[in-house]
């Protein structure tokens, strides 16, 4: 609760033109934002440009911005917008859909998962294979949910989806994994096809 209060407070100070407040915000959130940007863009220079745009734009338009009690969420949303418009600019001359995000750099690694040897069953290996089949958007949802611990509401806002859609999507992704854990090899192929269908949204 204290944390949220200080979020509102530091943001308000920044809106009033306090450069130190902007500095504090930058210092706290740089790493998270950089990671998120890199997972989408996979290019250090582009991420740098986007973060530069993000923080200069916030400063430039501060008199028009509203208050927030969740700076992390605010910055993630804003960064996603900057990245989207960056995409539009970059891909202007190529025939690529803006929302057709091709990458979300989230590579699961069985070796570094700290799973005890006796737990490494056939099912776990299958699961690990299945997770590699997740689409970039599914990976992004899982990332925002488990790494950034955002709510489904926030995730859907950031990704431009309806809340229901996100929840359904995430639940289905997890459900798929759960089922993979308990079913036999024969049905696995069918499930992969199912996962690919989810990518339609």
């Amino acid at each position, binding site marked *: 609760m204290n944390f949220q209060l200080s979020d509102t407070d530091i943001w308000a100070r920044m809106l009033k033109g306090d*450069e130190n407040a*902007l*500095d504090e915000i*930058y*210092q706290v959130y*740089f*790493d998270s934002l*950089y*990671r998120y940007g*890199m*997972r989408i863009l996979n290019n*250090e220079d582009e991420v*740098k440009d986007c*973060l*530069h745009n993000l*923080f*200069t734009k916030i*400063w*430039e338009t501060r008199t028009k911005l509203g208050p927030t009690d969740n700076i992390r969420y605010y910055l993630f949303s804003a960064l996603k917008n900057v990245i989207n418009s960056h995409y539009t600019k970059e891909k202007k001359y190529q025939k690529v859909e803006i929302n057709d995000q091709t990458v979300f*750099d*989230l*590579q*699961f*690694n*069985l*070796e*570094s*998962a*700290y*799973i005890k040897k006796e*737990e490494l069953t056939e099912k*776990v290996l299958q*699961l*690990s294979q299945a*997770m590699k089949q997740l689409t970039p958007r599914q990976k992004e949802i*899982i*990332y925002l949910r*488990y*790494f950034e*611990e955002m709510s489904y509401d926030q995730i859907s806002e950031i990704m431009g989806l309806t809340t229901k859609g996100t929840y359904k999507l995430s*639940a289905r992704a*997890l*459900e798929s*994994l*759960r089922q993979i*854990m308990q079913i036999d090899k024969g049905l696995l192929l069918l499930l992969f096809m199912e996962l690919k269908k989810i990518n339609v949204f």
Partner: protein
Amino acid sequence: MNKKDYLNSKTIDFLEDSNFIRLIKYQYAEDVAFWEQLLDEYPEARPFFNSASIQLKLILSANDIIAPTGLKDRLWSEIKASNLANNNATRLRKRIYYWSSGIAALFAITAYISWFMLSSITVRTAYGESKKLSLPDGSQIVLNANSTLRYPRAYAWKKLRQISLEGEAYFKVVHLNHNHDEIRQGELFRASTGTAQVEVLGTEFNLKERRGLTTVALVKGSVQVRSLKTGISYLMKEGNVVEVDSTKGEISTAQISASQFASWKEGKLIVNHTSVNEIIQAFEDLYGYKVILDNPTLGQKKIGGSISIKSEQSLLFTLSNILNVNVKKEGKTIRLESRR
């Protein structure tokens, strides 16, 4: 946290639970103790717990991404520099905005003043209509029918009180001058027609300009009449009537009394040894008709007396009786036919 909440938890429920996520992610000692106890009490939840735990561990096994050292600070100084430049640009923009709006306002004011100083007010009367008006200095003017009066919008701000007239008007000019030897700015009043200029300090006079002939009838005070063609001036005395013709610009005195000349204001025409043609001309000027006499010799007839000009009907009625003619109106033409 209530242990009973997890009694029926399946894998997916654990994965959606923030307490469970915290346990796997951070392994805080008090969390570990809580969950060990819970699983001892509810061994049936263990398989689901284990499954969820493995799934989450797999998720959390994802590659980390770390920014190159120094990037954070480097980027921050770049952002700070941009913001500083932006602050200055904003300040400059504001300054430019203030200056340009100031200049724009100045232009607007200048445009307004020039419009105010250079434009004029025009008052027109239609046929058969007369208007009374007063100028900003209090001078009174009665404008006769079919006449146009023009004066500067900035009348009160000008050195010279100046008006121009087409048609006929009666002037009662306010006397502003107090010292006769020293005539100051704004004290002189000038009325001009196409052929003559009348300069006064303060008087009452009738000015008429019809068919190229300007007639000035001085009722009170003194005025100076100047022929625009010859530049010759004539100083009029009270009661004088002066004519200036447009072709030669000659000034001549007329044998009528000034008060008689200004009688139109009261809605009558006082005539004294005046030809019917002159009366008909006056009628044409005031009411906009073309009058045709079927017997032209009638036009030479001189009459005297007072004729009402308040309405065209009364004037025509008088004429028809004096001349013993029938009046025939055809549109804008009036025919006066001798009675047989």
